[in-house]
């Protein structure tokens, strides 16, 4: 039976809604969403690829932040799942199968691989897990680079454009909107998971697996699910990447990319979804700016290396030193302190 609201109740609901809409948090969310939607219309042709890369990174980092920030499990090999997603999509699309099937299969393939290798891997903790995930990527790159069916070092060329229900994603802005949609889904899933029963279980096991077990949290299963879920997100980003660039090769997924994802998650602030988005944005833009500056006219030949490694490294060290919790938690603390009334003298 549907409940009918009385006019008075309806007024109260509208008043609640209006109050919610006026809250700084909601306004910030709306502003970010509006900007994200408008950017493909505003950005120039040369800036659009950076925007798509940023969005794809944000998808991966949102999952990685859930894995590292909420569940306390480190992965230094998350680009592996990006690779698996990209190759899955590319292999399906280049074998005359529908391209949408490739995009659909990409996250599932990455999640499935994560679930299988996660069984032995997630028995490890801390730096051992970090090294094991790193090793996983090195092995995967080696294997992919040597197989004929993956195209070896050259990879798979000529991946057709993605077509869904007759619509072909042909322009860069269409991929930007596709990546935005995927990011929205990933953020929504992550938000729903972390603020729920399984999310509390994940946060609990990050502190103490023994205490979490004693509270009934199936620690091994939860670690496996969150590892697979975050791998699935990376796989989805990889799938979009394959259709967007039109080719996939092992060289597109170096170990450095995995480190970059971790840096994005840490700089943005682990354990917050906004941190993942802020980290992906800040690092992508920083790298692009440093790259542009290094290759600008009149710069010495050593500039690109100095800027991309030394200056980048120094900036990261400074952020970690002065904002150890990351950009978003630090900004949130600052905001709370600013709003708190000063104590009476």
């Amino acid at each position: 039976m549907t409940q009918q609201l009385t006019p008075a109740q309806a007024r109260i609901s509208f008043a609640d809604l209006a109050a919610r809409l006026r809250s700084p948090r909601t306004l910030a969310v709306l502003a970010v969403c509006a900007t994200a939607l408008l950017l493909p219309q505003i950005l120039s042709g040369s800036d659009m690829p950076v925007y798509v890369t940023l969005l794809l990174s944000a998808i991966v980092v949102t999952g990685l932040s859930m894995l590292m920030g909420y569940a306390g499990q480190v992965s230094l090999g998350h680009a592996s799942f990006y690779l698996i997603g990209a190759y899955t999509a590319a292999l399906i699309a280049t074998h005359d199968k529908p391209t949408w099937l490739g995009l659909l299969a990409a996250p599932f393939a990455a999640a499935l691989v994560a679930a299988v290798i996660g069984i032995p891997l997630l028995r490890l903790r801390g730096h051992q897990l970090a090294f094991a995930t790193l090793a996983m990527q090195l092995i995967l790159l080696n294997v992919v680079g040597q197989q004929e069916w993956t195209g070896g070092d050259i990879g798979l060329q000529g991946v057709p454009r993605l077509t869904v229900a007759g619509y072909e994603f042909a322009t860069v802005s269409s991929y930007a909107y596709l990546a935005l949609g995927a990011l929205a889904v990933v953020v929504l899933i992550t938000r729903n998971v972390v603020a729920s029963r399984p999310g509390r279980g994940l946060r609990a096991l990050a502190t103490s697996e023994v205490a979490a077990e004693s509270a009934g949290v199936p620690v091994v299963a939860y670690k496996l699910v969150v590892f697979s879920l975050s791998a699935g997100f990376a796989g989805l980003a990889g799938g979009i990447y394959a259709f967007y660039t039109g080719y996939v090769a092992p060289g597109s997924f170096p170990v450095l990319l995995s480190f970059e994802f971790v840096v994005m998650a840490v700089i943005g602030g682990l354990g917050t979804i906004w941190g993942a988005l802020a980290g992906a944005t800040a690092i992508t833009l920083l790298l692009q700016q440093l790259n542009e500056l290094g290759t600008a006219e009149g710069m010495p030949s050593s500039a690109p290396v100095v800027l991309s490694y030394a200056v980048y490294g120094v900036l990261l060290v400074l952020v970690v030193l002065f904002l150890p919790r990351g950009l978003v938690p630090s900004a949130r603390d600052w905001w709370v302190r600013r709003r708190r009334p000063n104590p009476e003298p």
Partner: protein
Amino acid sequence: MTAGTMLRVEGLGRAFGGVYAVREVNLSVAEGETRAVIGPNGAGKSTLFNLISGHLTADQGSVHYRTGETLHPIDRLSAHSRARQGIAIVFQGARLFHGMTALENVMVGAHARTRHGFVAAALRLPRHHREEAAIRADALAALDRVGLKEWAHRSADVLPLGQQRALQVARALCARPRLLLLDEPASGLRAGEREALARLIESLRAEGLTMMLIEHDVAFVARLADRVTVLDLGEEIAEGTPEEIRGHDAVLAAYLGQESAA
């Protein structure tokens, strides 16, 4: 005979590096009983609790636990499965979950008796909404019971030790356990906090909850326990009512040394 028995431990043994922490322990705890486990440091009390809760696996012997009308062996069950069967444990140290509020810490306890998982949460299915509301209400009630309701929305990390211990008890209660294991819940507490804890245990006892309690304070044990099991060097050396235990020769010998007892 198993009628009225909640837990039966048979020939339980566990060694670390060739040294037995628990050896050939046999005990039976009745439904609704409060059983104290006492013994000098290193007697194997916490190891016994960890063997019952499933955090350690036994080298020998077995643990039987009442599910339905009969006792069943639970040796092959993991710790979280045993928690789902109604065994809750409050650890000696404060094992709180960092970065979570007091309320969220207690809500984790409800894991043992709720079901919705990642899919229901991610898709916000009706089951998620139903269970979340019930978990929150139960957690608030558990916090209220241990006197921490006003701390509900504060970070658990800032709680003083006494409140941290109480929070752990609230988390265990939120699981609605059938067997509650309390490992030195009163250690490090101030007099007022000990009294509040004793009253809470008394009220749980009055409700018929089966409990096992590790405690050093004899007066605390005498007040709260129906029966006492005494361990020394991993072996059970005595069992009886608090009055019987107080004058037991082997107990005096274990605590005071052989000559003093003689």
